């Protein structure tokens, strides 16, 4: 029976070529978009899924409160957290401490080679996390001080083999480390992709007996992961943290009118829902993921709506067939099955087309999304599951309603040719068209606003000059008492080149978060409860000049003042945080900063250290003449190549053993917008697709209604109606639907875009143009779509159309 139905369905699809093409194309585009986005989303959701213990691993995250208000949130916490909690709380089976070390340099054949991701890790690392060992013993690895574990790729890169357990390795010329294990590389979807792990005991040793991290509660920066017992109650465990933290730090923090709380984060939530200070890797954005998912479903739903609309609009043309079938013995159920088979066949064709489209679209999708989908997708079980689900949902969601409508016809009526009494479902169809246009308009407004915001962020003056700046990564090797001397000589040598402008060394550069956070800072003599946290950039004398910071009070650092060693410059925000709303008032004031006093010599205007997504932070610029950090060099754009060569030559001369990593600061700064730009592109692309699919449907609907009104148009023309009035007649209906869509879309879009903009500290100005322009665009697109049919009908020779009736 099904075979018979499919045969009929197939013939109908062939017979109604245009109509089928519209449906199949629309559905295929919808399915393709959905599948691609689903893959992307499921990748983002799959972070840490490979960890065998993923359901039991939690990160201990720290919230810092000042004056009763949440001030900062940290991925890392105090060093004593892991062992103290484990000792006191039976639900904790084990813990691992990780300390980010950044990059180190080693030498291969006398060539300095950089190793990027280095962590200190305590010995439970391999027991808690799933990084299978290729060589070495799980229980011996990372046990002793000065032992390390190396990733497979790193091992091969440095040694050419993974058979290296027992060998020694030099890091930053700071001593020999014994290799105790080689582990398999981490998969892509994890936050923790260490190239080298150094035993945590090394860290303890390096800090000396007077600075035992195991008891350090006021000393931050340690990532702590707990392995909980299976039945552990998370809230209960968090509650048990409170007295421990209170006992260890309560009195201390109370004096500062501050507090810290420690909370548990499920390992699998970290990638998408955490974005705290000191994250070991950049995070994803859960909101974006679900937004994209929403858009993808919008597109398929629009395609399904096309099917419903066209099928119900064309119902009359199938009425006779339904009547006959009922008259020769078909039951309603059998007719429903027949029409569902048609829907299934159509969806099946769409699925095939979608498969082809997916394969074609993968490279393009990767290019704009920055994602790495590969053709191996086709061997992915989930991919086929999602296809199957889309297929079944499509068949039933789009097919069921028309099937019921069609199968409901009364055979006596329709066989009499009496189709006038058949419900036209015009209201439903109009509502669905309104839905499609509301969705299209909403997405288009969203696209415009996303682009406007990105434009706004990129055009806004940063208050700091990042152009034509070459930055060399900080050296790791050879930081010793001769560093200042070497650096000074290096700078002098460079400055002699006339292609090179100002040069400065600083602990932070624009385009990334300031990683030095200092608490406990207050005015000398002020109460301890006024202590606050500030971000700090250590710098030499030339930073302010090099980066063109604007001083609004006081002066810049200068060698002309012998006492400048204990000088700081505040930014406006920091001065305000200290209690000075007029910057001049801050000048000459002294602050307590970790046991020493510093004089505020100047106040700088706020500048955008990071992208405009981030708010201004209270920032202290602290003079450290022999600071080690990033080297920023202003270059003449016409002679970039020579300049790089010159800087490299000097670098190798003064800092042998270090790799020469450089980048241009404007690129580095703009990289912050990459995620936003990608989001904008993906959003724009899928908006375009949604509009295309909606237009396909509109086109089909317009051809059908115009066809239906052919006779009416003919009569009107015979009666002398001008073409224009005929067009007016045909457009009026669509115009009204568009207006309704506009009325719905604007408030929804205004609300959701303003929600989205909340994620940005600096926001573009909303303007009515961003709403009206998309509306006009949609009107134009809809008009063109509808016009293919209507103009043809309006100018057609009325005699002809009347004769064919």
């Amino acid at each position, binding site marked *: 029976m099904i075979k018979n139905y499919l045969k009929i369905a197939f013939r109908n699809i062939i017979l109604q070529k245009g109509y089928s093409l519209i449906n199949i194309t629309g559905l295929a585009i919808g399915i393709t978009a959905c599948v691609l986005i689903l893959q992307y989303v499921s990748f983002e959701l799959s972070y840490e899924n490979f960890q065998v213990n993923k359901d039991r691993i939690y990160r201990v995250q720290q919230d810092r409160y000042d004056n009763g208000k949440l001030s900062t949130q940290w991925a890392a916490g105090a060093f004593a957290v892991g062992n103290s909690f484990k000792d006191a709380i039976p639900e904790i089976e084990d813990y691992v401490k990780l300390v980010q070390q950044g990059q180190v340099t080693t030498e291969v054949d006398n060539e300095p080679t950089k190793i990027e991701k280095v962590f200190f890790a305590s010995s439970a690392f391999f027991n808690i996390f799933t990084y299978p060992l290729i060589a070495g013993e799980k229980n011996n690895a990372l046990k002793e001080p000065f032992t390390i574990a190396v990733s497979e790729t790193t091992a091969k890169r440095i040694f050419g083999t993974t058979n290296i357990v027992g060998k020694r390795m030099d890091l930053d010329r700071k001593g020999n480390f014994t290799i105790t294990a080689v582990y398999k590389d981490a998969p892509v979807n994890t936050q923790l992709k260490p190239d080298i792990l150094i035993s945590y005991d090394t860290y303890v040793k390096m800090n000396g007996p007077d600075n035992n991290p195991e008891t350090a509660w006021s000393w931050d920066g340690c990532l702590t992961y707990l392995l909980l017992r299976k039945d552990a109650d998370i809230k209960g465990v968090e509650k048990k943290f409170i007295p421990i933290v209170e006992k260890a730090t309560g009195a201390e923090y109370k004096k500062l009118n501050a507090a810290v709380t420690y909370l548990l984060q499920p390992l699998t939530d970290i990638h998408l829902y955490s974005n705290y200070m000191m994250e070991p890797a950049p995070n994803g954005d859960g909101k974006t993921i679900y937004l994209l998912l929403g858009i993808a479903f919008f597109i398929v739903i629009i395609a399904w709506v096309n099917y419903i609309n066209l099928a119900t609009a064309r119902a009359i043309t199938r009425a006779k067939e339904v009547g006959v079938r009922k008259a020769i013995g078909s039951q309603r159920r059998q007719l429903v099955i027949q029409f569902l088979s048609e829907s299934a066949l159509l969806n099946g064709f769409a699925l095939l087309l979608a498969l082809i489209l997916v394969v074609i679209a993968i490279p393009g999708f990767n290019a704009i999304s920055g994602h790495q989908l590969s053709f191996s997708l086709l061997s992915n079980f989930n991919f086929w599951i999602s296809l199957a689900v889309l297929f079944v949902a499509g068949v039933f969601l789009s097919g069921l309603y028309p099937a019921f409508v069609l199968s409901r016809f009364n055979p*006596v009526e329709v066989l*009499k040719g009496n189709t006038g009494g058949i419900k036209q479902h015009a209201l439903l169809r109009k509502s669905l068209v309104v839905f499609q246009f509301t969705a299209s308009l909403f997405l288009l407004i969203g696209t415009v606003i996303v682009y406007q915001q990105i434009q706004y962020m990129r055009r806004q003056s940063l208050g700091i000059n990042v152009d034509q700046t070459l930055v060399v990564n900080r050296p790791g090797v050879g930081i010793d008492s001769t560093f200042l001397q070497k650096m000074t000589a290096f700078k002098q040598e460079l400055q002699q080149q006339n292609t090179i402008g100002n040069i400065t060394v600083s602990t932070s550069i624009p385009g990334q978060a300031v990683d030095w956070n200092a608490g406990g800072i207050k005015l000398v003599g002020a109460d301890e409860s006024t202590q606050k946290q500030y971000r700090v950039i250590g710098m030499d004398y030339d930073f302010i000049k090099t980066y063109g910071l604007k001083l609004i009070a006081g002066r810049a650092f200068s060698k002309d003042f012998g006492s400048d060693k204990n000088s700081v410059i505040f930014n406006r925000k920091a001065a305000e945080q200290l209690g000075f709303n007029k910057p001049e008032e801050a000048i000459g004031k002294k602050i307590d900063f970790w046991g020493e006093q510093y004089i505020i010599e100047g106040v700088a205007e706020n500048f955008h250290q990071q992208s405009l997504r981030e708010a201004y932070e209270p920032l202290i610029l602290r003079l450290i003449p022999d600071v080690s950090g990033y080297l920023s060099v202003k270059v003449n754009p016409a002679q970039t190549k020579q300049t790089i060569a010159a800087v490299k030559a000097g670098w190798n001369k003064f800092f042998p053993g270090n790799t020469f990593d450089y980048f241009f600061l404007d690129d580095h700064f703009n990289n912050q917008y990459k995620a936003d730009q990608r989001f904008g592109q993906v959003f724009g692309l899928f908006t375009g697709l949604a509009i295309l699919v909606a237009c396909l449907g509109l086109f089909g609907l317009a051809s059908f209604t115009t066809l239906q009104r052919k006779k009416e148009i003919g009569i009107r023309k015979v009666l002398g109606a001008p073409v224009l009035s005929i067009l007016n007649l045909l457009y009026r209906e669509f115009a009204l639907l568009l207006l309704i869509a506009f009325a719905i879309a604007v408030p929804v879009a205004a609300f959701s875009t303003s929600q989205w903009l909340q994620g940005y500290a600096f926001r573009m100005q909303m303007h009515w143009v961003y709403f009206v322009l998309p509306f006009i665009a949609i009107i134009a697109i809809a008009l063109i779509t509808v016009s293919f049919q209507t103009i043809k009908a309006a100018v057609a020779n009325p005699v002809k159309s009347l004769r064919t009736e």
Partner: protein
Amino acid sequence: MINLKHIFKWVTVGGSRVFLLKDINLEVKEGEFISIMGPSGSGKSTLLNVIGMLDGFDEGEYHFLQESVHTLKEKQRAQLYKQYIGFVFQAYHLIDELTVYENIETPLIYQNLKTSERKAMVADMLDRFNIVGKKDLFPAQLSGGQQQLVGIARALIAKPKLLLADEPTGNLNSKQGEEIMELFKQLNNEGVTIIQVTHSEKNAAYGSRVINLLDGRKEINQ
């Protein structure tokens, strides 16, 4: 076989009842060949549709074989109908998208017969109506008379006991009409009960009995 008692059917137009059938009483025995006649709009088609269970009625009793149709549920009625009744229309009402073969086969599909059985039955029917050569053509490729033959073949394929025909020759020329009537006669001789609606005295003469309708009422003079 058929027993209609006090059948009323009406529609409500502007608050008042317009009767389509008014107090129809009719008994039809198995093997009869009945012609319904009457002016246009007198309710002939309506009556035929009621007998064929395509349409319902508002009052009265209808017994078909052993069953009381007026008490049956929709589904049971469809079952009964599917099994015992075949319909022939003035406008043929073939399914345009199906070939001759498929049109004839369709009722069997609704009876859930196996492909092999269907094949045999359709082949027999094609043979009998001499349209084997046309089996792969679509309705649009046939003349009116040929289409009506297919329509009758389709009505007969499920071996109904009762054949209902609403002006089966209305769209045909007289020669084609005659052929169809001869066919009916022959079918009737084979035991199929037939009720046809016709405007032609000549066609009515093929039957054993004539029922005259006027304004939804049976005329007394039979």
